[in-house]
């Protein structure tokens, strides 16, 4: 009747034998696909971190972007700040996926993590790509402006060739004004090892002193720098007023005078802005450079007052305060 061995187990325990045959359930279908996709998310986070960390700084942008390098740089700082978070998320996510894969079990929490990793990677990559799109847009804008100036220059040349001197000179003035404006935007004396040449010709003045390397900004401005700034600003104001006394004799025209006075005022405005920054940050070298520039402008003015044709005879240019500056602000 019995289907069992009389001794029950043949010498061994049925329960022990049963347990020796039991195995954990295998992972369900799709488990390894989910793990691989999560690993793809980890890789995406790493790539996003590299892209974000590689975004250019403000200083690097100034070499390639004419307009708004400072503003774009500040925005990119926000994008770049996410890079460490991406790397940390990648490391943590990778470790978690390794644990899940080794255990071959998937609870709700682990499933949520595997589902979230590709989504996090997508958001991170999109974040970094947007940052780079901003860089490309800023560079493209600069390129467009430069091409526009080049086109105007070609148009001015064509006008002069066909005898339309008025139109040609007007276009040339626009080109010069535009080039001058572009070169004054976002200029940073801290970066200038070799300052660029003046716009309307070479300057006979000696190279200005090197600015100081960056130092930590003092909590309050140095009173001596504040006094020096106030004195310089007063001197700049009187120098601009004095330049209105300079006569522009032929071949220099009224348009040349208007242009020169306009660019001089722009340069001095930029100089005043930079002096306020220098005062806050304690950069004495900038003050030395500003004083040197103002002196150069003053000498040019005095020469022009004494002999209005001197500048043209020496440098084939009209009297130019900006042209006399060793460094453009």
């Amino acid at each position: 009747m019995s289907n069992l061995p009389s001794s029950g187990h043949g010498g061994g325990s049925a329960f022990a034998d049963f347990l020796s045959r039991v195995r954990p359930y295998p992972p369900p279908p799709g488990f390894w696909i989910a793990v691989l996709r999560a690993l793809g998310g980890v890789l995406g986070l790493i790539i996003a971190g590299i892209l974000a960390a590689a975004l250019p700084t403000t200083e690097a942008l100034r070499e390639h972007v004419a307009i708004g390098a400072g503003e774009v740089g500040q925005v990119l700082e926000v994008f770049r700040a996410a890079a460490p978070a991406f790397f940390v998320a990648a490391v943590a996510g990778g470790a978690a996926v390794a644990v899940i894969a080794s255990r071959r079990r998937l609870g709700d929490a682990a499933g949520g993590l595997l589902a979230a990793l590709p989504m996090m990677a997508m958001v991170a990559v999109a974040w970094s790509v947007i940052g780079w799109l901003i860089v490309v847009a800023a560079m493209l804008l600069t390129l467009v402006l430069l091409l526009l100036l080049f086109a105007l220059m070609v148009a001015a040349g064509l006008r002069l060739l066909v005898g339309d001197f008025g139109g040609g000179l007007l276009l040339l003035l626009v080109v010069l004004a535009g080039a001058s404006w572009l070169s004054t935007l976002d200029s940073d004396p801290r970066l200038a090892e070799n300052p660029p040449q003046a716009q309307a010709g070479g300057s006979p003045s000696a190279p200005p002193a090197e600015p100081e390397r960056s130092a930590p900004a003092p909590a309050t401005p140095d009173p001596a720098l504040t006094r020096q700034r106030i004195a310089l600003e007063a001197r700049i104001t009187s120098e601009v007023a004095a330049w209105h006394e300079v006569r522009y004799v032929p071949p220099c025209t009224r348009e040349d005078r208007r242009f020169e006075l306009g660019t001089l005022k722009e340069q001095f405005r930029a100089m005043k802005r930079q002096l306020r920054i220098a005062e806050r940050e304690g950069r004495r070298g900038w003050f030395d450079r500003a004083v040197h520039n103002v002196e150069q402008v003053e000498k040019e003015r005095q020469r022009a007052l004494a002999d209005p044709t001197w500048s043209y005879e020496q440098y084939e240019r009209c009297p130019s305060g900006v042209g006399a500056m060793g460094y453009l602000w």
Partner: protein
Amino acid sequence: MHSQELRPQADLRPAPALRQRLERQVFAPARQLGEELALVAITEPPPPVSILHPPQGGTWIATRHDSDPVAAARGALHAPEKEIKRLTHLQRGGVDPDVILVGHELRSRWKPGDPVPPAFLPGESSTVGRVLDVQAATIEAARGLLRAMRRIGIGLGAAAAVGLANLAFVDPFVLGGVRDPQTGLIGWVPLGAWDEQSAE
């Protein structure tokens, strides 16, 4: 192989010899480990494999642990890790039934020789389904931003519905049997039971 029913009995009165063996081999060691096991049936010794086709469909299989055709087809008898740990704890604590009976349920009408579908833990199956749907939606979103949010919403909803539907399924159980030395009858004690999801 025979077709035989295994029913829980209403009025269980084990003979003294069987009661004594049950106490010594199963109940006392289990109580020491904090588990209360109970006698659910006394039957004739079952054949190695019993197959039953209930009227509502499907197949019930009750088999000795060393003759299990389902485990043989799947390569092993599968159990949740927690259950394996618990059963091992009982065995090491001295629970020692004479025979182990394993019960399976298959959804389809099965006979020996037919293929046995693989089985998985139901919670994990639905979780993996949801995870794959969300991941697929994310990948699709990366390809087409405008379609992304609608697809993710649909994918999650469908996966949840499928997961719930798959919760109605099979129940493996494990019974430990102690033999009455005088009558030969077997007293059955449930040792474990869990849910599994068959890939049918």
